[in-house]
């Protein structure tokens, strides 16, 4: 097995990890668990489930994409597959 397939496997692991978080904040906290989480209040008067659905999931998405980009740039260099 070459470095290239090792690189690809590392990439897939990273993507799966990020998408698990992506799923948990939106479909998990924002939809499926929202009724249960609503008894907790944060940032003042936000019910937690409602906050995840209308605010928190969006903030997490932003952070996730930058995290993914940062980790991928590291992987690119580690496996020597970066451009130029």
């Amino acid at each position: 097995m070459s470095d290239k397939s090792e690189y690809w496997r590392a990439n897939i692991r990273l993507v799966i990890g990020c998408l698990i978080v992506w799923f948990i904040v939106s479909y998990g906290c924002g939809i499926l668990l929202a009724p249960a989480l609503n008894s907790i209040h944060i940032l003042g008067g936000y019910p937690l489930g409602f906050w995840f659905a209308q605010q928190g999931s969006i903030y997490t998405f932003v952070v996730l994409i930058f995290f993914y980009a940062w980790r991928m740039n590291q992987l690119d260099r580690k496996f020597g597959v970066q451009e130029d």
Partner: protein
Amino acid sequence: MSLQLMTYLVVGATFALYIFIAIKAKAATTGEFYVAGKGVHPVLNGMATGADWMSAASFISMAGLIAFKGYDASVFLMGWTGGYCLLAMLLAPYLRKYGKFTVPEFIGDRYYSNIARVVAVICLITASLTYVIGQMKGIGVAFSRFLELPFEMGLLVGMIIVFIYAVMGGMKGVTYTQIAQYCVLIFAYTVPAIFISLHLTGTAIPQLGLGAHMGGDANNMFLLDKLDKTLVDLGFHEYTLQKGNTLNIFLYTLSLMIGTAGLPHVITRFFTVPKVKDARSSVGWSLVFIAILYTTAPAVGAMARLNLMETIHPTSGDQAGQWLKYEERPSWFKNWEKTGLLKFEDKNGDGRIQYVGKGNKEFKNEMVKVDRDIMVLANPEIAKLPNWVIALVAAGGIAAALSTAAGLLLAISSSISHDLLKGIIAPNMTDKGELLASRIAMAGSICVAGYFGLHPPGFAAQVVALAFGLAASSIFPALMMGIFVKRINNIGAVLGMLSGLGITLVYIFWFKGWFFVPGTAMAPNNAAHWFLGIAPEAFGAVGAMVNFAVAYVVSGITPAPPEHIQHLVEDIRVPGVVRR
């Protein structure tokens, strides 16, 4: 200065800016016309994507949707932002590495099939054209309400502006005007939101104001609790709690996410950055710029709803507990009554306005129409903001509609000139010839879109379901499998796209009429008749799953793709040059 004069000045100034940019950014080659010469900075491309993505619907309709649907409108907030995660991790960097000009071009090459390419072109044109009709209508409405020009006139002015910068500059001109349009629209959206948040909660940041105490006083109720209580007292559903069925909310969100990641005019934006690593970060920047509006919208929605309820049925002051007298209604109420978007009917003849929900036994609802689109546009007037803010909102709405229309028109015209003409019909065309063809295709698309804007087909309102359904069920799976599953071959991909598309279209048409012809629906369009309670708008995710399954199974029992295609897939998976 009168509001109308002020609006002319502000809107006129933004138009002058767009045309100035168009003259500065003329496209000289097909590379510049299709992908802006691949020289756009990732942060600037993020801004342009923000304007490209946020349409008249995001700017004008979304906060109103949230105001009236409360929690259930979260599907739009999560759906239209979560798609960017899929785009960043599953599509954009790889398609940028491939480095061609259009989405159907990748599908055609990867599946070594002109049929696949044509299927992709048809999906792209249908999705984009239906979408662009809505923008044209938005431009017309904004003009007629704020500049008091006839609708047709407004549409024509909008078409001419787009024509100037899109035909001359192609992607290059569109990119730089979109950056300017983003600045106009985000300023126009956040300024009134900050004023209203300050007014209601004493907090300047709307995202925090939504969670704050009324009037910023810890002895008062929280704004959201107050809104819940006000609504429940009048017989409406709680604002922060779920109303719809969970499966439908789940699939609706998923369909919007997959659809967002599969919309060609958005994907193409990431072909314009210099490197693969720029494509990754640029998606992040896009979402930053989009999130500024998308996290403000819930605050605007909730606060606008509360303001509306308090105007009609105040809970404090000397009128507390009294319904508003129709004679004493404020001037914004009168203005919107004129447009027909707000309608009152005095059912019990007491001269007062009763605005109540289904749960109220005492009164009948007398606000027979409260169009959700007026929420953002009327907000500055309801909150008594100065005229320049109202003028700014008009310019922002027009910027949102123009920028999205230009992006969509560009996607349509490039797929005509690059995929159909150069790719299939006349492969020997010179670069100059193709550039001319793409300009003619652009001019033609603008005219077609303008025609449909003037004579909207009956299905204009169903646009969202169709555009997202097509993108989710056909384009996204084809692209994703093309990158992640080497084994998918031409037959599998084509059959997968056709079956995903087919089942989604049939489901939409079943409830909305065959090709949206009124009266041909097979079942009433409501939750009781939907399959497992899934709305037609939410079915794209199911179509995508069918697409994945069919492509996978069919590819498994037919010959593997040829070696050069397998190499192509290996090449796009790494950012740098592959040495064999």
